[in-house]
């Protein structure tokens, strides 16, 4: 009987090992390929409108997007200069299979954060989200229209202090400096 138990144990161990070996590693959702239009290195000029975040101003900046962590996420890093100094940030996009959209989280070098969701339809990315700055919460929405060749885009954003009244926030034409490296 002990021999049978031993044999059974060995079989169970082999089975568990086989199952573990065969368990397929998770793969990035195919929808993440929709984000590939954003990949690469971009330069931009940003025309900020006067609004709840301050007076009108202009900035120039650079924005780089790359897929990270096995292609499950897109990481964006940006840095811009304006008369008031340098502003930079880091953001991470992921696919949310439950809501069938993209979710993003962003962090800025003056402590503010932002988060929201994005959808991609053809060459247009539409985002809605929340922006937390100086202990206050704002709502934001934006549309990024990419040219057919994917080498330029226009980013238009609106902001609201109460989620009801929206005002233009910024208008940001962007140019891709070089194509994203092939993986």
């Amino acid at each position: 009987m002990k021999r049978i138990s031993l044999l059974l144990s060995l079989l169970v161990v082999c089975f568990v090992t086989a199952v573990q070996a065969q368990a397929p590693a998770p793969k990035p959702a195919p929808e993440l390929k929709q984000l590939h239009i954003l990949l690469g290195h971009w330069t931009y000029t940003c025309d900020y409108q006067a609004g709840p975040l301050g007076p009108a101003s202009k900035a120039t900046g650079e924005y780089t997007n790359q897929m990270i962590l096995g292609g499950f996420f897109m990481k964006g890093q940006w840095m811009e200069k304006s008369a008031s100094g340098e502003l930079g940030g880091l953001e991470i996009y992921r696919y949310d299979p439950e809501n069938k959209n993209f979710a993003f989280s962003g962090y800025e070098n003056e402590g503010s954060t932002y988060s929201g969701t994005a959808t991609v339809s053809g060459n247009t990315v539409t985002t809605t989200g929340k922006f937390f700055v100086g202990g206050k919460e704002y709502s934001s929405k934006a549309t990024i229209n990419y040219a057919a060749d994917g080498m330029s885009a226009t980013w238009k954003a609106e902001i609201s202090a109460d989620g009801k009244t929206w005002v233009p926030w910024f208008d940001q034409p962007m140019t891709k400096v070089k194509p994203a490296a092939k993986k």
Partner: protein
Amino acid sequence: MQRIALLFSVLVVCLVNTLQAQAPKPDPALQKLHFLLGHGTYGGEAKATPLGSAGKFSGEQTAQAILGGFFLEARWTEKNAGGANRGLVVIGYDPASKNYTITAFANDGSVESDTSTLQGNTFTMTGKLSFEGKQYLTRVTETWTADWTSCIRKTELSTDGNTWSPWYESKFTLDKAAAKK
């Protein structure tokens, strides 16, 4: 004319100083976490859960301050029963809720978002973990030694917020602990 130029220079310096004084600075609560900066190693044992099979794991982590010190970023690599795993964590501080915010992104596509409080030497975290389209709730207690060089982490997992199961326990040791010896 020289007097006007001097007065103008003084005014400019005062204005720059005022603007610099108004520039936001990282909350001291976040600077409290700087003991985490640098390299450390960890090891532990996980229970079988919907997230993976039971088994021992070990890994290493490197943390640095980013974005003007307003956030910490940690990267980890790990070997576990399922193979290997790596990821990226961003830690911030929300002065409004007085909570630390922690978001971890792993190369299996999972995302864990936690809020944490610190009392004495113990962090208490609650959060949500999203993996392969399913949501889980997490509870973590992380108790650090008096010299802040190592900690014991105990975690629990729930699918509904009512029933909690042990998830994993681990010990994390910063390299500076070894350097002290």
